[in-house]
């Protein structure tokens, strides 16, 4: 679906006309990212991050497929094939490995900005609930994929990460330990676990790609949200995706690739943990087990539970950690305010920035040792995280007086830039 003023695809060359009749692929592309998709004229640079996430996934799939051609998926060979063969002997192997490892970090940076963009501008609200739900599904798939990718390198952090994460399942009352052994295919992470993680690490990115197609499909039915959060009223509010946003996204992509290159070429190990350059040793735990940075906030929530209360502390930690993500599925119904953009919601805007700070502090705690100060800080911040979504946001929606909304996107744009435009 699209707006009535969307341009129709009209193939001119005979070959394109023939193709349009047999397999209308160019028509699909035209209607998705061409002039066939009218988009609000006021999108800011935060709207680049969807395309950047797609580019990040493409980089991961391409580098991942070729790395798999050199990877040995066995407990005896995995570490050496990554740190020996690929880094030293395979032509450009070092580049592909660093691009893949840092690509994961960049994928998460981009996706976190994309998620917070959605939170700030109310992109999760009707009529785009399905877009949000599919987004949360993609986020969960990304977390599973990133975790398994980190494990198969088979360094010390990989091994103990696998031990700890699969240890979550042993928190299930009664059958937990059986499930853990079943997941690992043994009593501790070993060949069986490594091989199944490798198999799934290769599979899931394609599942993510499928979920992204659904995510975009669901987005193109109501059309894109915009910084005012006001619905598109007419043709004057939109511009065709191509060339306007292909150009803007193209510029964003170049900036992204420049930053990515700086990290890949100059700081390739900055985002990783040095202990992962030690081969996995099942008989020695690192002094302080930490996941990759993008899991720190969730890890802090897991560690925030230290004493039993009806249920064992371990089960609480695991439930809260999964709950903190599953909670996002209910967000469209928890925040019932009819105003989408926080630009016009003074209280919700403050709550948003407090949440950003809260998640940042949780992240900092998750990356720090489990000493008392950080545990208490994570407890406060974990409590606030749940409070924000379950209490504060629903309450604000009821009590807040939004500032006046513009009548249309065009009116908002002219109010901002009209004076200068008239002067020229």
């Amino acid at each position: 679906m699209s707006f009535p003023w969307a341009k129709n695809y009209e193939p001119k060359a005979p070959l394109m006309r023939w193709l349009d009749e047999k397999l209308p692929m160019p028509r699909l592309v035209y209607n998705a990212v061409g002039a066939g998709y009218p988009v609000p004229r006021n999108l800011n640079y935060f709207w680049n991050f969807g395309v950047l996430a797609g580019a990040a996934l493409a980089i991961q799939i391409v580098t991942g497929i070729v790395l798999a051609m050199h990877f040995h998926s066995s407990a005896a060979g995995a570490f050496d094939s990554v740190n020996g063969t690929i880094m030293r002997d395979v032509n450009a192997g070092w580049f592909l490995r660093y691009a893949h490892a840092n690509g994961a970090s960049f994928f998460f940076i981009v996706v976190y900005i994309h998620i917070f963009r959605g939170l700030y501008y109310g992109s999760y609200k009707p009529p785009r609930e399905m877009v949000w739900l599919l987004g949360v599904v993609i986020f969960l798939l990304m977390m599973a994929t990133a975790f398994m990718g980190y494990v198969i390198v088979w360094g010390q952090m990989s091994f103990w990460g696998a031990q700890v994460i699969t240890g979550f399942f042993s928190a299930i009352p009664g059958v937990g330990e059986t499930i853990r052994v079943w997941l690992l295919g043994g009593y501790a992470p070993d060949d069986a676990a490594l091989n199944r993680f490798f198999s799934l690490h290769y599979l899931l990115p394609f599942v993510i790609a499928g979920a992204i197609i659904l995510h975009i499909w669901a987005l193109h039915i109501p059309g894109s949200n915009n910084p005012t959060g006001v619905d598109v009223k007419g043709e004057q509010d939109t511009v065709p995706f191509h060339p306007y946003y292909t150009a803007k996204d193209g510029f964003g992509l170049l900036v992204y690739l420049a930053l990515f290159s700086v990290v890949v070429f100059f700081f390739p190990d900055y985002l990783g943990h040095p202990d992962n350059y030690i081969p996995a040793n099942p008989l020695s735990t690192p002094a302080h087990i930490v996941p990759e940075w993008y899991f720190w906030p969730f890890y802090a929530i897991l560690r925030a539970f230290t004493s039993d209360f009806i249920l064992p502390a371990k089960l609480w930690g695991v439930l809260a950690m999964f709950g903190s993500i599953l909670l996002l599925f209910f967000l469209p119904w928890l925040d019932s305010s009819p105003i989408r953009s926080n630009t016009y919601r003074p209280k919700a805007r403050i709550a948003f920035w407090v949440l950003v700070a809260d998640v940042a502090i949780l992240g900092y705690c998750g990356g720090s040792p489990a000493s008392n100060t950080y545990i208490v800080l994570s407890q406060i911040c974990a409590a606030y995280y749940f409070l924000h979504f379950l209490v504060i946001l629903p309450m604000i929606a009821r009590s807040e007086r939004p500032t006046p909304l513009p009548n249309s996107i065009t009116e908002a744009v002219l109010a901002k830039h009209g004076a200068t435009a008239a002067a020229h």
Partner: protein
Amino acid sequence: MATDTVSNPGESPDHVSDPRRRDFLNIAAVAFPAVGGGVAVLVPLINQMSPSADVLAQSTTEIDLTKIQPGQGVITSFRKQPLFVRNLTPKEIAEADAVPVGSLRDPETLEQRTKDGKKNWLITLGVCTHLGCIPLGINEGDNRGKFGGYFCPCHGSQYDTAARIRQGPAPKNLAVPDYKFTSPTTVLVG
């Protein structure tokens, strides 16, 4: 169809019941093989993830106790997991016995956790029951925590001299695997 039932009013009960019986047969005929086929496919697909025979075959470990002096501990491996073997001193045994069992999170006496007459040999998995890290305390000079047993620095679980959980997030005592003394100085685990 409507005219059918109107023109043969006497037969209408049959007309109504016949399709229903047929529907039931159809559903049953499809459902049985579908469920059977589903189970036949799912069982191997799920069960393939259980430990394979070669993993299960590594399931016993023999330990020689002759060189472990009182107060010493060694770390060895059992089913690719760390195994703690500790020769407790009389003081450590007394400390473990002094704890009221009712006050423990996972109530067990040292007696229940060791073999008869071998109360000084404490053999447990070295796997923290919180999230599976290896606690400190088996090696000389390790931090043994507040209760003199084992200490997991990752999330702060503290175990006493009988390797029972005393403080922190771990829900259970360090697990005692199945083992037996094959001679006074040899233990077979598994």
